C-alpha cells in the first residue's frame, strides 16, 4: 500500500469520526435535499383546477376486493385464449411452408447424390427440428408478447404484484416475483433475467428457482394438446373454451406450487426475514401501439425464437442419430424408452414420454414431436395432422386420461430447458443453484405425478 493511499485511508477514518459526531448524516442530507426540492416545486409547479383523477378510479376497480382477482384471472384466460386460438392457423401455414421447403431440400440432396445418413442428419434431423420449433413457437409468441408488453407498458403489472403480494409475503417471497412470473409465461429464461428487479439476493434466488413453475410459450402447445386429449378421453369432447379453462386451471396450480415451494425454500435453504418491500404503482399510460408492436416482436419474440432455434438445431441432429442407429433390432431411442418404461409407469406415464422430456431438454417445443417419432418408430419427426390423429395414435400406445393429465403436470413442473438453466447459471454465478434449479422442479414433478398415478389407480379410476 502506498504512502498516499495510507493518507487517504486516514482521511476516510477521520471523516467517519466526524460523521459520527454530526449525528445521522444520511437523514440530514436527505431532509435538506427534500427541503430544497419542495421549495423549488412550490415556486414552479401550479395545479390548475381540479381535474378528475382517472388513475384513482381505475385502481379502485383493478385492485378492489371483489373485482381484483377475477379481473386478473379473466385477463390471464383472455391472453391465453387469444394466444391459443390465434396461433392455430398461422402455425399450420408456417408448418406447411417450412416442411414443404424441406421436401425441396430432400430433392436437392438426391440431386447432389448425398449419402442417406447426411441427408438424414441435416434435413430430417436438423432442418425438421428447426422448422418444427419455428412453426410451433413463432405464432403464439408473436401474439403473446405484444399482449404482455401492452399490459406491462400500461402499468397494470405492478397492480398485479400489489394484489398478490400478500400470498408472496406469506411464502417469504417478494411481491415483485409476480412480475418475473408474468415474464416467464413468455419465456422462462427471460423470466429468470427479470428476477434482477428483486433487490434482495434471498428473494431473488427464490424467484429464480421457482420461475419454471409458470409454463412458458414453449410448453403451452404441449399443455393445450394434452388438455384436449384429456378432455376428449374423459368427457368425450374438447372445445376451445373447455381446453382453455383446463389450461388456466393447470397454470393456477403452477402458481400454487410456486408459492408452496417458495415457502419451503424460505424456511429451509433460503432462510431469512423478508426484506423491505416497496413497490411503486406508476401512473397508467396508454402505450403507443406502433412502437409496442415493433419492440415486442423484435426484442422479445425474435430474440427468444433465435435462441430456441440455435439450441434446437443440434438437438435435431442428435435425436435423428438416436432414432436411426440400431442396436440389434431396435433403435437407441427404442432401447432407452424400454429402459425407462418401469419408471415412467410409476408416474402414470411411459418410458417414451420420460425419454421425450429428457431429449427435449434443449427446448420444450420438441417434446411432442420426439414422442410421436418414438411411437411411430419412424426415424424422423413428423407432425400430427390434427388433434384427432394425435389422439388415435396415443390411445393406440396405451394412453388414458391419466397419461394425458400427468403429461400436463410433468410438463408444468419438470426441469427448466437448457437455455433457462444456462441463464440461471449466468445470473446466479453458481453451479450449486443451477443444479438445484433443475433438481427441485424435477423432484416436485416426480412426486406429484407419482401421487396422482397411485391415487387414480388405487381408486380404480383407470
Amino acid at each position: 500500500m502506498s504512502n498516499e493511499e495510507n493518507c487517504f485511508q486516514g482521511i476516510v477514518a477521520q471523516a467517519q469520526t466526524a460523521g459520527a459526531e454530526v449525528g445521522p448524516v444520511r437523514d440530514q442530507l436527505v431532509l435538506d435535499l427534500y427541503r430544497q426540492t419542495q421549495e423549488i416545486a412550490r415556486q414552479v409547479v401550479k395545479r390548475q383546477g381540479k381535474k378528475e383523477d382517472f388513475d384513482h378510479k381505475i385502481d379502485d376497480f383493478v385492485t378492489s376486493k371483489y373485482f381484483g382477482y377475477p379481473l386478473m384471472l379473466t385477463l390471464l384466460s383472455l391472453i391465453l385464449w387469444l394466444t391459443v386460438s390465434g396461433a392455430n392457423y398461422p402455425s399450420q401455414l408456417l408448418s406447411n411452408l417450412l416442411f414443404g421447403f424441406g421436401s425441396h431440400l430432400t430433392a436437392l440432396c438426391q440431386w447432389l447424390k448425398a449419402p442417406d445418413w447426411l441427408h438424414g442428419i441435416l434435413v430430417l434431423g436438423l432442418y425438421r427440428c428447426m422448422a418444427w420449433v419455428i412453426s410451433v413457437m413463432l405464432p403464439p409468441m408473436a401474439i403473446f408478447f405484444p399482449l404482455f408488453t401492452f399490459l406491462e407498458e400500461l402499468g397494470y403489472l405492478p397492480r398485479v404484484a400489489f394484489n398478490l403480494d400478500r400470498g408472496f409475503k406469506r411464502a417469504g417471497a417478494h411481491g415483485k416475483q409476480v412480475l418475473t412470473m408474468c415474464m416467464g409465461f413468455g419465456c422462462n429464461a427471460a423470466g429468470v433475467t427479470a428476477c434482477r428487479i428483486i433487490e434482495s439476493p434471498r428473494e431473488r434466488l427464490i424467484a429464480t428457482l421457482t420461475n419454471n413453475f409458470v409454463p412458458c410459450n414453449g410448453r403451452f402447445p404441449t399443455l393445450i394438446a394434452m388438455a384436449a386429449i384429456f378432455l376428449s378421453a374423459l368427457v368425450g369432447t374438447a372445445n376451445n373454451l373447455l381446453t382453455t379453462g383446463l389450461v388456466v386451471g393447470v397454470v393456477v396450480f403452477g402458481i400454487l406450487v410456486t408459492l408452496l415451494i417458495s415457502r419451503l425454500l424460505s424456511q429451509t435453504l433460503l432462510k431469512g426475514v423478508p426484506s423491505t418491500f416497496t413497490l411503486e404503482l406508476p401512473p397508467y399510460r396508454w402505450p403507443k401501439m406502433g412502437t409496442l408492436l415493433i419492440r415486442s416482436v423484435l426484442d422479445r419474440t425474435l430474440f427468444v425464437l433465435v435462441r430456441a432455434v440455435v439450441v434446437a438445431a443440434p438437438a435435431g441432429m442428435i435425436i435423428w442419430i438416436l432414432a436411426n442407429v440400431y442396436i440389434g433390432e431396435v433403435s437407441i431411442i427404442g432401447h432407452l424408452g424400454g429402459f425407462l418404461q418401469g419408471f415412467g409407469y410409476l408416474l402414470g406415464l411411459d418410458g417414451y414420454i420420460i425419454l421425450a422430456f429428457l431429449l427435449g431438454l434443449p427446448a420444450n417445443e420438441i417434446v411432442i414431436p420426439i414422442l410421436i417419432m418414438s411411437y411411430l418408430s419412424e426415424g424422423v419427426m413428423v407432425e400430427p395432422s390434427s388433434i384427432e390423429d394425435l389422439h388415435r395414435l396415443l390411445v393406440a400406445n396405451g394412453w388414458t386420461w391419466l397419461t394425458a393429465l400427468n403429461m400436463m403436470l410433468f410438463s408444468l413442473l419438470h426441469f427448466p430447458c437448457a437455455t433457462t438453466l444456462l441463464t440461471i447459471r449466468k445470473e446466479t454465478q453458481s453451479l450449486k443453484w443451477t443444479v438445484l434449479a433443475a433438481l427441485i422442479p424435477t423432484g416436485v414433478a416426480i412426486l406429484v405425478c407419482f401421487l396422482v398415478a397411485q391415487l387414480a389407480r388405487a381408486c380404480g379410476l383407470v
Partner: protein
Amino acid sequence: MNCQHVGTLKVLSKLNQDKSDAVIALAGNPNTGKSTVFNGLTGLKQHTGNWPGKTVVLAKGNYRYRNKIITLVDLPGTYSLLANSADEQVARDFICFGNPEATIVVVDATCLERNLNLVLQVIEITPRAILCVNLIDEAKRKGIVIDFPKLEALLGIPVVPTAARDKVGLAALKESLHQVVFEHKQLQPLSIRYQERIEVAVATIQREIEPFLRGKINSRWVALRLLDGDTTLITEILNYISGTGPDSWEQGSNELKAVKCYE
C-alpha cells in the same frame, strides 16, 4: 453487485474507443419515460419498461447532430445516487468516474418534486447537467402547469420540456446538449447547502481530500460521501485517481455482450 459495478467502468473504456465525439449519460427515476427519450434520440431498438428497476443493463446508442456523433448511455432508473442498490451504484459511478461530457436527467413532469431529488444529487456531482422534463402531455392532462424559465433559473442548468412518446422537444434537447458540450455554454448550477454542522465538517474534509483528487472529482461531493460513511466509493476513488481500473477485463466484455443482446 460487484460485477455490475466493474461492468460500468468496462462499458466506459469500450466507449472511449468508439468513434464518438461525446459520451452523454442518461439518468432518471424509474417510470419517467427515460428509455423512451433514449429510443427517441438514438432510434435504437431497445425495450422500454414500466416497472421500477427495469433497465438494469446499461444500454448505449448513437445519434448524429450537427456533424457530431453523440453516444448516449442509458443508466438504470434510480430514485437517488446514494448507492443503496447495485443500480444506484452503477448510475453514480458512471456519472462520477465515467467522465461523460454531460448528464441528462429525465424527470416526470407529473411528479416533479420527488424527481428533483435526483436532479440535485446529479448537479452535486457534475455541473454539466441538463434537465429533461418529460411527460409534459400527461402533466397537461392532469392540469399541472410548470414554469420552465423559472425552473431553469432556480436550477442553473438548461431545462427542456419533452413528450418523448410523440417526439416533442427532442430536437430542443439535442440542441441544448450541443450547446453545453460543444459550445461550452457556461452553467452555474444551484449549490445545495446543508445544515451548519454538516457544512463545517464537510469543509474540513474537503480541504484535506482536495490534493488527492487532483481536480478529477468534485471534492465537496466526495467529502459529503465520506462524511456519510459511504464505503462503496473509497476503492473506486483510489482506482480512479491512480489510473488503474478493476482487474477483470473479461467481466467487462461479458457485460457489454449483455448490453448487445438487449439492443
